[in-house]
């Protein structure tokens, strides 16, 4: 086993030296992977959203420092990173894409994820990047159009009927909300041991498909047709040019399993540009605001902005709707929303609330058939990606989403097409 000291980064003098170091490291790891003798950690990358559109937001470097990360400048966009109070270099932060810094680290998965969670939890200006199923679907389209068809790729599908009763008829979704305030999503990465795994049994699917690109492409649509959870893609491997690939996860984690850090960095940049394009298009369409038209005397206003509409593939059962709504606004709910629900009927709820992670307002409507969200101007579009990702994973794997009149998937595809030009 590698010791923790081997997973810190050395002190080097320049960007080039760091990139060379990580590239060489990647080659070594790929060789070890090939002979299944992996001794050291892989390069892990974590993607951030920074609320760059908010004029009150600090710049990305300040946001990290406020979250307890000491950044030391390598050049204008690359920094070494360590937790406050530590001397060793735990990782590198690169301002790879406007509003989306990334953290590269060689720490083992658990240490790296704990650090990442702590950073996000400590700052209202930093969030994960949320890769929803429509974003993965667009990325899959990119993979099968650009990768040799004989190469292997990997897709993971994940769906858990979180708000259905367990097999004994117990309501497990709403238990324990008032205890530990750590959000469910933050506990999720810690896999319980077999002995400690007391998770309730309920309808859930998690399956990973490792196959040649041509095979996946030939069968994916049919799989999705016969079994809905196949719509809920939560992980995708983008094959690297020579061997291995880059594993992207729904919550903004990426693992480099290729032999090239430089290719890894390029793929990460590509996905972030796609993501930024989709987020900014969504924000442009969604942001609700009013502006005065004409002169002071006429006092006329014009209202701009459109809602997000989510239509469930089938109406939720009354029980699922009730349990989801009562869990939705609990302090430790993974949806991270606050609001006083206004009940208009047993199947109808309005909430004029707040995204508790980013502390930005959001107005929501829920019925058993749909969810609708209004984003007041300034509320980050990342909130929409998080909502879609969580609904797809825990409520309805086949949920359809629109940004105003346009399908969310079209917004994502348009961004991909724009990037590809």
């Amino acid at each position: 086993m590698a010791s923790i000291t081997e997973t810190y980064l050395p002190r080097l003098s320049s960007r080039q030296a760091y990139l060379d170091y990580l590239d060489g490291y990647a080659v070594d790891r790929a060789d070890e992977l090939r002979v299944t003798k992996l001794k050291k950690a892989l390069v892990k990358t974590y993607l951030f959203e920074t609320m760059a559109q908010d004029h009150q937001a600090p710049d990305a470097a300040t946001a990290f420092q406020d979250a307890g990360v000491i950044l030391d400048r390598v050049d204008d966009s690359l920094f070494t990173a360590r937790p406050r109070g530590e001397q060793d270099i735990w990782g590198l932060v690169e301002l790879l894409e406007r509003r989306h810094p990334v953290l590269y680290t060689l720490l083992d998965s658990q240490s790296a994820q704990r650090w990442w969670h702590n950073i996000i939890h400590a700052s209202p200006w930093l969030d994960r990047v949320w890769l929803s199923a429509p974003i993965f679907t667009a990325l899959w389209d990119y993979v099968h159009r650009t990768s040799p068809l004989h190469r292997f790729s990997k897709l993971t599908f994940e769906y858990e009927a979180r708000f259905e009763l367990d097999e004994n008829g117990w309501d497990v979704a709403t238990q324990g909300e008032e205890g530990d305030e750590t959000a469910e999503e933050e506990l999720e990465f810690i896999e319980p041991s077999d002995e400690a795994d007391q998770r309730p049994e309920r309808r859930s699917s998690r399956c990973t498909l490792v196959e040649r690109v041509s095979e996946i492409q030939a069968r994916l649509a049919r799989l999705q047709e016969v079994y809905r959870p196949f719509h809920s893609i939560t992980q995708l491997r983008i094959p690297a040019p020579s061997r291995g690939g880059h594993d992207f996860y729904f919550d903004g984690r990426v693992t480099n399993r290729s032999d090239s850090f430089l290719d890894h960095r390029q793929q990460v940049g590509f996905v972030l540009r796609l993501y930024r394009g989709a987020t900014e298009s969504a924000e442009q369409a969604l942001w609700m605001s009013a502006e005065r038209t004409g002169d002071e005397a006429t006092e006329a206003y014009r209202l701009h902005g459109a809602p997000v509409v989510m239509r469930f593939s089938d109406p939720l059962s009354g029980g699922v709707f009730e349990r989801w709504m009562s869990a939705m606004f609990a302090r430790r709910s993974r949806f991270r929303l606050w609001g006083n629900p206004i009940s208009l009927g047993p199947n109808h709820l309005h909430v004029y609330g707040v995204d508790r992670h980013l502390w930005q307002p959001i107005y929501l409507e829920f019925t058993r058939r749909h969810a609708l969200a209004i984003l007041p101007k300034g509320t980050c579009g990342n909130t929409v990606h998080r909502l879609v990702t969580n609904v797809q994973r825990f409520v309805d794997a086949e949920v359809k989403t629109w940004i105003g009149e346009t399908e969310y998937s079209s917004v994502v595809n348009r961004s991909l097409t724009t990037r590809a030009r």
Partner: protein
Amino acid sequence: MTGSALRDPIYQLNFVLWMLEELPPAAPTRPFLRQMGYTLHSLGGSLPMPPELRVRLADLNLEARQAPAPDVLASRRGSTEFLVVECKAASFGAGSSTAHQARALLVVSADLRGPLGLPALPEISGVVSYLLPEPDSTALEATVHELAQELEGARLPTAPFAVLGFEERSDGVYLLDRHPPTGLPPDVEESISDGVRIHEVFEGETGRRLYLIPWDPSVSQTPEERQFCQRILFERVLAEALALAGRAPAPGEVHLPMDILLDRATFTLARRWRARQDIKHITQTIHRFLRGTIERHPRKFATRWDAMTRTLVVSLGSAEEHGDLLRALEEGQPAEWLKGRDMQQPELFEDEGER
């Protein structure tokens, strides 16, 4: 949903706005006006009467001092057609004070070029469209018809008009046209026909959609509807206060400026209220609510009131104190706080709250 919502001007205004929203076919609301090519031109703007018409109305002893201000003005893409939408709780008679406004609206809408500052040619008239609960549409249609004939008889320009009804049925809220032909474009009238469902409603739901406009203190409402709207406004204010507090540094200060909170909670439309002297009273009430909410927490926060900027400032000594402030605000209950309070009635010793 009770029938009183259909008669409520804020519900009706939001109903019209949802008909103009960008929505997909799968949405629970059909944006009928948008589908017919209309987009929102302006909300609540007044239409200044051209001077020549003022003289002629004055000669006929008809009220023309105040510029009429329809609730919504919508324009149709690719044409010069305008809808001048006025929502009403109930019908009114030709002798009522509301009929004076109706006459002015019919006259001024006959040519919107001057009132809207549009180019000189060609003439652009709007269709004055009244919307009200269906049982009353027949009576109002008769009234507006009478007013239009009276104006035409006096050789005053008169805009075409329509009187449309709302109706709540078991499966949704409908828009009806019971009095064709109206002044509406034929394709719009044909599409409404015997009724077009705007809000789809299933068992256990109501025809209320999210309120884009939460409240307007100048509007006359039933106590229940006023309470409902005030609650929405206060929920939105609380959300804005939490947003400011959540992103504040700790240690440091949280600044809660009352005017900005109200501005944000209403998409800035509260600025329209200023002329009506309502804003100060409402921000004072918001201040009392937020201060009361913070003071309910066991921790004693250090607060001060900055009278110059009308800002409640909370000093935070630590991250723990910051967490407690967020908890205190999260536990705010506008519905409970508003019980028995009516913001349209200033409270005794109101200014004492701002210390």
